[in-house]
């Protein structure tokens, strides 16, 4: 007979917290797994009263939503945690931020609003900013125009099963070129589709349509994530939780 853990099952989740964090600087080279390990250790160091799964190897209740690719920075990564004791979201944000390495910043923490649905359902699009050192606006501008004018742009994408051809065009909702301090900047809004179209794939597409080949590796930052509406705006995925929170507070105020 296999052994079972002694004692009662672990305490249940009493509150869900939704967190936005950034990975910056050198830590853009961290993979999703690297970040997950760092976050779990930091939650322990910050003494956040996590809820755990049952069994011999209990896991803290954490769900990660999407993950920027290794090598990309991000100002908008999301995760949700379950805690066993109610916490003040801002206190959790500050404690976790202090426990994490400098280049990971915890930007927001809100309580999941009752009946507002899942966080994952509120995210289907990324807003990217890609710096292209050594490329001028005059080179980037026509490449972006050519790309947007194309119906199909096939690029080879590296997957677990080797190289695979994908069409990079339909996922890109919008794209534009700009320039800062002599360095071309590509802004784009990209739908999160399967297989994923990442900044590297769009850059490969620019090489395919306009032979744009940056002399040194571009630097991508995910600036926002959320749901893309018909007007082309990406909505803040934590908005509904914040609204639910303030309406609860108003109710209390009127009592």
């Amino acid at each position: 007979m296999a052994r079972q853990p002694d004692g009662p099952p672990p305490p249940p989740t009493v509150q869900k917290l939704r967190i936005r964090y950034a990975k910056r600087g050198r830590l853009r080279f961290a993979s999703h797994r690297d970040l997950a390990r760092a976050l779990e250790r930091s939650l322990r160091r910050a003494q956040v009263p996590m809820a755990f799964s049952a069994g011999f190897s209990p896991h803290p209740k954490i769900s990660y939503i999407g993950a920027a690719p290794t090598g990309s920075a991000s100002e908008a990564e999301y995760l949700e945690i379950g805690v066993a004791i109610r916490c003040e979201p801002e206190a959790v944000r500050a404690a976790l931020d202090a426990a994490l390495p400098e280049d990971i910043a915890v930007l927001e923490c809100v309580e999941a609003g009752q009946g507002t649905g899942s966080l994952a359902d509120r995210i289907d699009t990324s807003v990217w900013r890609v710096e292209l050192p050594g490329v001028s606006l005059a080179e980037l501008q026509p490449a972006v125009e050519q790309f947007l004018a194309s119906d199909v742009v096939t690029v080879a994408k590296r997957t677990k099963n080797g190289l695979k051809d994908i069409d990079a065009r339909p996922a890109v909702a919008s794209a534009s070129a700009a320039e800062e301090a002599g360095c071309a900047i590509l802004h784009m809004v990209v739908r999160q589709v399967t297989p994923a179209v990442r900044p590297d794939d769009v850059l490969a597409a620019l090489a395919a349509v306009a032979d744009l080949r940056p002399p040194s590796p571009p630097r991508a930052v995910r600036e926002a994530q959320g749901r893309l509406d018909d007007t082309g705006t990406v909505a803040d995925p934590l908005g509904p939780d914040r609204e639910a929170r303030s309406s609860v507070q108003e109710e209390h105020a009127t009592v």
Partner: protein
Amino acid sequence: MTAELRTATGESLYPRLEPLLAQVQKPIQYVGGELNAQVKPWESADVHWALMYPDAYEVGLPNQGLMILYEVLNERPDVLAERTYAVWPDLAGLMRENGVPQFTVDGHRSVRDFDLLGVSFATELGYTNLLEALDLAGVPVHVVDRDETHPVVVAGGHAAFNPEPVADFVDCAALGDGEQAVGDITDVVKAWKAQGRPGGREELLARLARVDGVYVPRFYAVTYGADGTIAAVTRTRDDVPERVGKRTVMDLDEWPYPKTPLVPLAESVHERMSVEIFRGCTRGCRFCQAGMITRPVRERTITGIGSMVEQGLKATGYEEVGLLSLSSADHSEIGQVAKELADRYEDSKVSLSLPSTRVDAFNVTLANELSRNGRRSGLTFAPEGGSERIRRVINKTVSKEDLVRTVTTAYANGWTQVKLYFMCGLPTETDEDVLEIAELAVEVIRAGREASGRKDIRCTVSIGGFVPKPHTPFQWASQASAETIDHRLRVLRQAINADRRIGRSIGLRYHDGKPGVIEGLLSRGDRRVGRVIERVWREGGKFDGWSEHFSYDRWVGAATEELAGFGVDLDWYTTRERTQHEILPWDHLDSGLDKEWLWDDWQEALSEEEVADCRWTPCYDCGVCPTMGTEIQIGPTGRSLLPLTVV
């Protein structure tokens, strides 16, 4: 000198490195920024140390030795210490193409800028990685080509007890415990720099050669006889010691390092924190270099252990703590340590583990205690030798009955997987000794199924070829050839698979005999072997500890060509048995062990006689304590862990 003296600025190479990182595998390993890492301003320190582990980051980062020195050195306000690791070939290629030198992961400074490069050799298979790192750093690989602006290359770690094969490439070797030695070396370098570098590099090295525990190969000349053996090793300066003795740190409680262990973002080979519960071992296993060169036993007290575990957990957020030593169950208060730590962390998610080595029912009790409320999956024992006879030869005596009983007890207590470590190619070994491993495994499974009432228990036999090491009683032994090892592994595999009903519960993990032969060449080699190492590196050899990078043929080819002129060859260094009075390449390096005692112990091994542990049967015969002025430091202290006060 007409050229202007190069000034080291410690400037960060990161802006030049960053574009390369986007093009390599696992770039996170090169960016630093680990929890508890330190970056000091370059100008704040008088002496700059680069500390290298000559293997991949994932292997090097958890290394305790390097982590301890990093912290001990950085505690000094006049010292800056940063870490560097072997760079994988994908990045090394890009670095050469773009002129980016070997860098430290902390401040991304050029290794060339540092005063000292300390390299920790846990295994000889890191030698080619040292040459690669020096070359990438822009430091001449040969000691003789360096000037006073180049870092002083200091080898440490267990392999430094025979640094002769790398004598052409390292300026010094530091023997024994490094905690105090690095401070003394720092002081010498600091004074020499403050005085305006009098006498250049030669003078600095001469001063370092007078530091206790520091060996400077260039001040010792080696001559060879007609038969290829060493004729003499003589000093070339009379102000350096004739023999260099090792350093020993006494009172481990005074050295509670690492206090704030490094926690990497990248995945590493040990996803846990380690606390060294004692140093040294006097069990007297004759194959074990670590047990011979780290004598005497020095225990950390139960309270010292308790506070290191607590502080370390706070500083890291790790979930698992390993209680580390050469034979952890031998700590005089281990029962109490295990129970009280288990009590203390019972309600937390922290798990405790003990790297088990000895086959002993007590080990099962300890493991049960530490896994009180956790999963019981794997337990490891190391009988090392397959038969009772060979276990007497290696002085790791345990009867077959005790072995089977211990493992059966483990299964009966809910452990489902037991791993057994063995070696093959031990002195006097025959096929029959190795075949007994199969009998043992079959019996263990049979008895285990009966005792536990389960069919899903497993036994994994892990086996590798034995490599004779310097400063052990087996330093004279003939190493088994790769063919012998591979043959014995083949017959063992057949024997295990003979009965499928039992055999399917037994796993066999093994390493073929070839890498062991090269490790043997490097372990017991002399200065002539340096040419082989250099040739292999020049032909592209590195990461020799990794099967996908190791090339046996390249090593054999290089050995054949480079050694031919000396009248010796690969077999001469490996399969040849040494005679009693042969001068061994490491005889002028003093681990404290009396050579006569080692020889007698070798003879006793051949006649299958055991030797007792001096912790329980007082004996000063090995010579270490009288030579080094040290004493065994063990408990029990009678103290206990107090409940932690709530903070």
